[in-house]
């Protein structure tokens, strides 16, 4: 292949491969670039220290930091905002919670009305427009789940292609408790294969899952699904280790390709008729800023950045002297897998306008990941014989069930991404500076959801229940910065995610999100990227490019 392509896609994580696959299937020549390496199954060993607690998936803070400026605090170098830097991106190490956004998430401004201090807007597209692409994602990569999740389950056109994963028997406790509280707990949809699918092995139910790559490829990452499928067309060239330094422009309203540095330090240029940016929200904004502020004519680039609110509730279920209960709780199954969506909108009045999802699960797998929270709890910690005793109790005399909550993080004018004026990365380029403000609603919704989760855990028979991370957010789920909209004065890309002022430049990752939804966004990123790919394909047929 030459260095001229019909399409260059920058970013091989969640947002890039669906576009690359769609266009390669249509006969376009595609280059798919990612700055990170291409891992194989052999790389995914059970090495908790190196893989889950160090820098296996993200760049070093010393060479490629983000600078985080939380309101009222000094700037600090951080790895926050990096999801992953490898082919497949965060889909390689994700837990694979694959919920669809609810229809009201696309009309959030209409549903909630004006909220002071928030920059809410409706999406220019509806759930119905995205629905076929949600189905395509589930089919293409393999998603396991159960269709009937109660009133707040988004409308579905068919069953999931795979049945739910097997659950730990303690899921019955959550089911019954939720039911008594007037809710429905249903199997969490997962991008993990419950059966063999598409030539890939089903899940082996190992304990080290979220935060790790799957050693048998049962996790439905784009690395194992869409990227090989794109290569199989013979039209897609995948280039790992390619750090794109800038997007080149050929005219006021057109881009001409990209310049990148390979893993050996050599510089290259690729020409393309269409360029698609999908580097994850923070880095996509940074690349567009580094390329002369593409799409920033109205100062909107980097604005309306969002994350997902995150809070937790924990329940400790003691074995006690009840042999039957102890035996059930000691079951070795790794997945609890229960979700509750009944608090997507609050049931009672109050200061919370929109809620989110409860995801019941076991604590992060791995002996270190579970033991450290036993020592470090809140602002204090245990040590010495007290810690050893607590560890004995944790590991031998109880089973802990957690609940992670995901809620709407309100876009606000104080949360944005820009280029840092001081810090540069290993390539000599300014790094992304993430400025974070907090809307009071974020704290309220995270508290509200943690309280609901705690109620269910208490009802389920937990001997001790506590909450944590109230007011927290997960920067593993960045969104916004290239907001999608029909009005170029208040958005960066149009409804097919084409940059307003550029005819052949698209963005296809979470940066185009208008609101953060009440569930993790990965499924929606993939679905929207398939939609963007289809729009570009249709443009080729119309000879737009």
């Amino acid at each position, binding site marked *: 292949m030459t260095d001229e392509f019909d399409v260059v896609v920058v970013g091989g994580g969640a947002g890039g491969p669906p576009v690359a696959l769609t266009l390669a299937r249509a006969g376009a020549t595609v280059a798919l670039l990612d700055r990170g*390496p291409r891992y194989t199954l052999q790389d995914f*060993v059970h090495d908790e*220290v*190196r893989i889950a607690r160090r820098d296996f998936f993200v760049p070093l803070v010393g060479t490629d930091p983000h600078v985080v400026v939380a309101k009222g605090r000094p700037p600090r170098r951080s790895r926050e905002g990096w999801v992953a830097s490898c082919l497949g991106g965060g889909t390689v190490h994700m837990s694979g919670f694959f919920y669809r956004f609810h229809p009201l998430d696309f009309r959030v401004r209409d549903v909630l009305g004006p909220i002071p201090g928030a920059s809410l807007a409706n999406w220019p597209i509806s759930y119905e427009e995205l629905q076929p692409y949600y189905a395509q994602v589930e089919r293409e990569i393999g998603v396991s789940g159960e269709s009937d999740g109660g009133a707040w389950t988004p409308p579905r056109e068919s069953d999931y292609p795979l049945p739910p994963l097997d659950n730990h028997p303690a899921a019955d406790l959550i089911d019954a408790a939720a039911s008594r509280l007037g809710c429905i707990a249903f199997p969490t949809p997962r991008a993990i294969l419950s059966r063999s699918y598409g030539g890939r092995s089903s899940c082996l139910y190992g304990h080290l899952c979220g935060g790790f790559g799957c050693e048998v490829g049962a996790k439905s990452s784009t690395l194992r699904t869409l990227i090989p499928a794109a290569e199989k067309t013979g039209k897609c060239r995948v280039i*790992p280790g390619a750090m794109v330094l800038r997007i080149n422009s050929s005219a006021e309203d057109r881009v001409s390709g990209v310049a990148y540095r390979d893993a050996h330090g050599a510089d290259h240029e690729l020409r393309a008729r269409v360029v698609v940016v999908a580097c994850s929200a923070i880095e996509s904004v940074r690349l567009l800023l580094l390329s002369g502020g593409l799409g920033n004519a109205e100062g909107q680039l980097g604005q309306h950045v969002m994350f997902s609110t995150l809070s937790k509730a924990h329940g400790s279920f003691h074995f006690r002297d009840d042999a039957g209960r102890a035996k059930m709780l000691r079951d070795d199954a790794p997945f609890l897998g229960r979700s509750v969506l009944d608090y997507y909108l609050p049931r009672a009045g109050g200061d919370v306008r929109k809620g989110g999802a409860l995801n019941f699960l076991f604590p992060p797998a791995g002996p270190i990941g579970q033991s450290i929270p036993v020592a470090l709890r809140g602002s204090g910690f245990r040590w*010495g014989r007290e*810690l*050893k005793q607590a*560890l004995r109790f944790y590991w031998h005399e109880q089973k802990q069930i957690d609940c992670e909550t995901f809620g709407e993080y309100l876009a606000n004018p104080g949360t944005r991404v820009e280029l840092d004026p001081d810090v540069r990365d290993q390539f000599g380029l300014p790094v992304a500076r993430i400025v974070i403000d907090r809307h009071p609603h974020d704290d309220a919704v995270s508290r509200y959801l943690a309280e609901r989760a705690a109620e269910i855990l208490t009802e389920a028979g937990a001997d001790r229940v506590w909450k944590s991370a109230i007011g927290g957010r997960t920067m593993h789920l960045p969104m916004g910065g290239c907001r999608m909209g029909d009005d170029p004065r208040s958005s960066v890309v149009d409804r097919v995610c084409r940059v307003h002022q550029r005819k052949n430049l698209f963005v296809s990752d979470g940066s185009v999100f208008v609101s953060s939804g009440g569930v993790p966004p990965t499924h929606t990123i993939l679905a929207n990227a398939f939609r963007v790919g289809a729009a570009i394909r249709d443009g080729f047929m119309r000879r737009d490019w």
Partner: protein
Amino acid sequence: MRNGAEPWAWVEEPCRSNHHGRGGGAATPRPPDRNSRPTGYCPLQQGMVHLLATMKRRSFLALLLAASAALVGGLWWLLRHAKPLWSSRGAKSESLWSDATGAALPPQQRAVLQALCERLLPDEEDSPGARATGAFNFIERELMRPELQSVRERLIRGAIQLDGLAVRTRGAGFAELDVSGQERVIAASMSRESENRRDSMLFVRDMLSLGLEGMLSDPIHGGNKDEIGWESIGYTMRPPRPYRPARSSHGEASDDG
């Protein structure tokens, strides 16, 4: 390209071996066969056959005796030195530690940190702690990694402060105190009266996290000796276990793509 007058320097192959050794794959050019030796030819083996055929019986017995004595002596020597010869596991791990390039801890602070680790995660009669699991060995190795140099500096500063507090309040360095004395100094460093309470708490938290990592990580990292850390909490680590520390290949070339 090869240079020099002897491009195909002859290398004896191992006895009874018809295949090329490691590094001599199918793509490796064969040397010219100067002597037309039969496959599997071994000079030592052929020499022994010739010697035995020409030797008298008494001489043969004497040779046998000498060989037996040599064998017994060799075995005795091997048994004496068995550990350094056969314990390749440690040496293998060290050689794999190519990314641990930093300097070792200064001796004074090393002693303080080791003692602190053993107090934070004490050995008990029925439960191994930092000492039994070799957690501090893990910590020392980790602190040599380039990306943990800021943690290393923070821990050295913390050790100096803790040691200073021990000298001021108990008249001896932290590592020299008995268990009870060390526990009191740790508690005092984080008490509300402490001037450096916040720094001390961060310091102890760092040590706790590293210590637990050392107790419960794969033994290839230098801690969790004989997996007794996992055993103590009833954890079974399933395969695939790492045969070397997993390493990110950020920035390294890939053959794919």
